[in-house]
């Protein structure tokens, strides 16, 4: 994540339609990677880097001159569609490209061409990862920038389809079964969202967020539309108890795919839900409390499952369920006094979880590659100790638990502060409980890494530092460092923040 | 109603008769092949009469041409599918 100084940018960049470009570039690259499989790695990494540079330039531009709107086709809303970039969107753009770049580098190593010994399934993974990732990137970027509920629906479809493609990339029977459930769950979510969009249009004749946000009165039809859209997004975000598809889909995918699915895909729909909640609809306290309670349920249920399962990948997948629940507590707090602080905390938790969880899945992938399995019961008996991957896992766990000075700590602290300022002690209690539970389940693998007394025979450490361990390690370091270097992201988040009441000019 | 319209209505009713007969045959006949026989009557003559009646009612050259085209393709499609289905039924032993 490079934050370039706006004053050093060339004048052309300052006028380029960067919002359109960050959607179009990955699209064109996806087609190119599909057309030229032999050059797919280069195309994929190059395009991701380019999108990252464009996103960073856009973020820098935002810091210098405030939120931006591109009217596509030159048509103003409500007739046309606009891409709107505020700090939240820019932050997500930069994070997505950054994490995508590191996961992509890891993928270029794990899906490397092996020549004549390559099995057909391996060849497929190598050829199809890149177009799917680039489509995913385009869908995510389209989602972040969209300011139109129907357009959000189509972006969600791109996201959902490419995510299913990534989930079944390994071609294994378990992955295919999980992928089919994932596809159906995603489609059900999309349809509920679309139904909500229909209700909105029927009730207001508008689909753009600006017009919808200007409506002050929550009529029953609008409430119903909001409930439907949030229900659809809850399925896609895997909010308890609609998380049924997630553990299997995330734990059976190949490591880079799991990393992307968990770090970015579930966040896409969470982002939309948060944006609709804060920007568009007047928050309804009852509904917010309900979502908060579901979040609390997710924390308890996800943590308990994570403590029970035997597979390391499944543990990490259930931890996503719990963490999503933690972030969703914000829906109960935005209406209160500390609403803005809680919102900042939730956004920061989204970023922290994205970095930490992608690091964790990549690390688990490396561990499973070394050991040939990911069974927790057998971890402490293994003489082989893939040290660097285990360090990456532990660092990521630091951020997930929320120990200072990690990004997870900062996010959790802000969320906690928001709850405390609102005197919402119930939610404070839930967060403390969630933290304790996350310590409990994450200690299972880490204690396995550190126990040597059950090992029969000498302990073997991989002698040479493998470049493949650098990427999970890098992501884990990012998950910590974002807590130390929080000033720029937080000031970016303030650009166009929905909580800032515009000054009334007398 | 002009005499032309009366004529058109008469033709339309005749067409309808073929469709009703075709449907009844479809329901009453004992096996695939005789049902096929009922179907082709509706397809060919029934639709031809309906198209003719519609053409008389609209009395527009381009509409008439389009109606002829539609009828022609339906007949072609139904002849081909009738043949294909009958052959399939014969071969797979679904005839009776």
């Amino acid at each position, binding site marked *: 994540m490079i934050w370039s100084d706006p004053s050093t940018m060339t004048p052309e960049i300052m006028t380029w339609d960067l919002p359109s470009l960050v959607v179009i570039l990955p699209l064109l690259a996806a087609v190119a990677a599909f057309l030229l499989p032999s050059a797919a790695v280069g195309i994929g990494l190059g395009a991701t880097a380019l999108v990252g540079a464009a996103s960073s330039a856009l973020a820098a531009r935002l810091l210098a001159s405030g939120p931006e709107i591109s009217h596509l086709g030159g048509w103003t809303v409500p007739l046309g569609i606009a891409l709107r970039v505020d700090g939240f969107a820019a932050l997500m753009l930069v994070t997505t490209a950054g994490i995508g770049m590191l996961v992509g580098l890891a993928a270029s190593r794990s899906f490397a061409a092996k020549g004549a010994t390559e099995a057909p399934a391996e060849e497929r993974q190598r050829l199809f990862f890149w177009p799917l990732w680039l489509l995913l990137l385009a869908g995510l970027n389209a989602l972040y920038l969209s300011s139109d509920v129907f357009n959000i629906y189509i972006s969600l479809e791109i996201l959902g389809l490419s995510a299913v493609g990534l989930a079944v990339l390994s071609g294994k029977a378990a992955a295919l079964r999980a992928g089919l459930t994932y596809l159906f769950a995603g489609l059900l979510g999309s349809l509920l969202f679309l139904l909500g969009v229909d209700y909105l249009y029927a009730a207001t004749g508008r689909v753009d967020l600006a017009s919808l946000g200007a409506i002050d009165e929550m009529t029953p039809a609008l409430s119903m539309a909001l409930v439907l859209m949030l229900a659809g997004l809850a399925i896609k975000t895997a909010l308890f108890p609609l998380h049924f598809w997630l553990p299997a889909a995330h734990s059976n995918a190949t490591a880079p795919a799991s990393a992307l699915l968990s770090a970015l895909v579930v966040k896409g729909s969470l982002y939309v839900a948060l944006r609709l909640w804060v920007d568009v609809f007047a928050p309804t306290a009852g509904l917010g409390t309900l979502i908060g309670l579901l979040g609390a349920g997710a924390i308890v249920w996800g943590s308990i499952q994570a403590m029970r399962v035997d597979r390391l990948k499944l543990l990490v997948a259930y931890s996503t369920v719990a963490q999503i629940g933690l972030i969703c507590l914000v829906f109960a707090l935005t209406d209160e006094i500390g609403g803005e602080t809680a919102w900042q905390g939730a956004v920061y938790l989204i970023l922290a979880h994205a970095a930490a969880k992608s690091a964790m899945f990549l690390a688990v992938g490396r561990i499973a590659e070394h050991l040939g399995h990911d069974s927790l019961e057998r971890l402490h008996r293994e003489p082989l100790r893939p040290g660097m991957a285990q360090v990456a896992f532990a660092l990521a766990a630091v951020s997930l638990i929320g120990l200072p000075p990690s990004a997870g700590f900062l996010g959790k602290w802000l969320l906690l502060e928001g709850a405390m300022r609102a005197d919402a002690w119930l939610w404070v209690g839930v967060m403390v409980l969630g933290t304790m539970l996350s310590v409990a389940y994450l200690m299972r693998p880490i204690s396995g890494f550190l126990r040597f007394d059950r090992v029969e025979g000498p302990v073997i450490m991989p002698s040479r530092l493998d470049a493949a361990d650098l990427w999970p390690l890098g992501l884990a370091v990012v998950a910590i460092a974002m807590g130390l270097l929080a000033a720029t992201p937080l000031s970016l988040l303030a650009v166009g923040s929905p909580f800032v009441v515009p000054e009334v000019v007398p | *109603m002009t005499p032309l319209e009366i004529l058109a209505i008469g033709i339309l009713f005749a067409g*309808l008769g073929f469709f009703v007969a*075709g449907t009844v045959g479809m329901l009453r006949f004992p096996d695939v092949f005789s049902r096929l026989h009922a*179907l082709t009557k509706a397809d060919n003559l029934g639709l031809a009469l309906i198209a003719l009646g519609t053409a008389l009612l609209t009395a527009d050259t381009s509409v008439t041409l389009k109606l002829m085209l*539609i*009828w022609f*393709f*339906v007949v072609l499609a139904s002849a*081909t599918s009738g043949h294909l289905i009958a052959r399939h039924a014969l071969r797979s032993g679904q005839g009776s």
Partner: protein
Amino acid sequence: MSEVLLLLMVVLLLTLLGGLVRVVRGPSEADRMLAAQLLGTTTVALLMLMSVAMAMPRLLDIALVFAILAAIAVVCFVATGEVRDHDAT
């Protein structure tokens, strides 16, 4: 005049429903396909009448598309069908 047309359309719609019985009853796959074929033709006839009754000549384009695609499903049905061994003569 339009009443007569409408009456025709209602009866034609009822024959569509009658054809449905054969789709449900079968018994063979060929029977069901055959019934679907008849229903397609009836729909084309209905669209012709509706184009007059609703004064929308553009409906004939829809009928044209139905007509031109009428055989696709049947062709697929036969082309992907099974061939028994004793037919391979």
